[in-house]
């Protein structure tokens, strides 16, 4: 025992080195994510491969019961699917917000009849008076862009006078300088991906690539993206500036639309009707 002690104390540098470097290595491997992952992975590789081999045989033995459980699950899901497809779950989403006095609410509706090939296009949606839809409400597309206005309303259905109609005029602005104009479609160009912005004052500069958004002055909420200017200097007969724009919204593939309910629409209309047109 005494000799051992002498031996240890003579070579104490070496033994201390072993102790301290072991502590250092333990710290390294325990506290550094990369080093830990390497050490754990190399041990896991052996174990993992063994388990994998075993599992292949196990899977074969279990095939029968797995098949049974899958078919029962399939049947259950199919029953649920039947229940779901017969119920229209998209009801009016009401947001009670007394603090900020929210002005607009959206109601999702499915397009049941769409038309894009005519001069004056009208589409039909599966929501009607029972859901609170009234003529004149704005309709927008879920992705990007405007669709049109509600035209007629029945109990369960409503028709939309789409932008692709000679009477539709939407108040828009050029996003960068807030120049007011109106969005129309037609006038010799019946491409459903294009529309015109008209009645922009002459001193405003419109460049190709400018973004056009809704103004928020009429039934549409402000800042809904409409399109991007593709051609300027379109000649018209009046003294205003016109430009052609590419619409963001693709009318031919519309499936769902949002009807915009404006809480203050009646109030605004009543107020503005006091002012007589020729005053």
């Amino acid at each position, binding site marked *: 025992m005494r000799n051992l002690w002498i031996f240890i104390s003579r070579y104490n540098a070496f033994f201390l080195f072993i102790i301290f470097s072991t502590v250092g*290595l333990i710290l390294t491997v325990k506290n550094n994510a990369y080093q830990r992952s390497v050490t754990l992975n190399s041990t896991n590789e052996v174990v993992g491969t063994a388990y994998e081999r075993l599992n292949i045989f196990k899977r074969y033995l279990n095939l029968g019961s797995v098949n049974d459980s899958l078919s029962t699950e399939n049947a259950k899901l199919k029953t649920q699917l039947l229940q779901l497809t017969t119920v229209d779950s998209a009801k009016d989403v009401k947001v009670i917000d007394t603090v900020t006095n929210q002005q607009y609410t959206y109601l999702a509706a499915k397009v049941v009849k769409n038309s894009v090939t005519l001069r004056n296009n009208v589409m039909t949606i599966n929501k009607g008076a029972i859901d609170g839809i009234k003529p004149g409400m704005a309709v927008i597309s879920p992705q990007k862009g405007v669709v049109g206005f509600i035209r007629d309303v029945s109990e369960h259905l409503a028709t939309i006078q789409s932008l692709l109609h000679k009477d539709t005029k939407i108040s828009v602005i050029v996003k960068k300088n807030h120049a007011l104009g109106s969005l129309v479609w037609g006038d010799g160009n019946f491409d459903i991906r294009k529309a015109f912005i008209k009645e922009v004052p002459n001193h405003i500069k419109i460049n190709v690539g400018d973004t056009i958004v809704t103004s928020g002055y009429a039934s549409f909420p402000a800042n809904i993206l409409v399109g991007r200017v593709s051609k300027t200097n379109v000649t018209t007969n009046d003294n205003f500036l016109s430009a052609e724009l590419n619409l963001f919204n693709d009318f031919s593939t519309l499936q769902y639309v949002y009807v915009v309910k404006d809480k203050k629409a009646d109030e605004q209309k009543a107020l503005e009707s006091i002012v007589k047109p020729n005053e």
Partner: protein
Amino acid sequence: MNSRTIIINIVRWVLLLFVQVFLLKNMGFYDLSTPFIYVLFLLLLPFNIPNILLYIIAFGTGLTLDAFYDTMGVHATACVVLAFVRISFIAISLNKDAHDDPEPSLSYMGFQWFALYSLLCIIAHHLVLFFLEAFKLSEIGYTLIRCGLSVIFTVLLILLIEFIFYKRTSR
């Protein structure tokens, strides 16, 4: 070991770690050569320091560096290895009881001895440091190149510092 030696070593520790952490940590040539001059503190500890104290100081210094470099344990292990090499080299190259010099610095020991001493210690330290950092043998070439270039950089810097603080009268 008197109080003056202790104070000098504490000041040296603070200065070298400050330079290492706040200056040299951001330095490097093409991600290949990074100097670690804080080891100069461990090289310059006095001759008569007990082994256990030397190891504790080396381990503590390494841990402090690890805290700043976010590599828990890597620098600590490298410093412990350096301490072992230091003890072995001094035991082999010098007569154990004869040396009356206070510390193994360039001023006391001369260029030849100090250069070899620092080179061996730094090679051991950097080898452990870079291999623990890489932690795989597949990049051995890259690790060795980094290690070798860093050893050159560190040794040059340490010799430079030693020449700056060279005390001509003491020898």
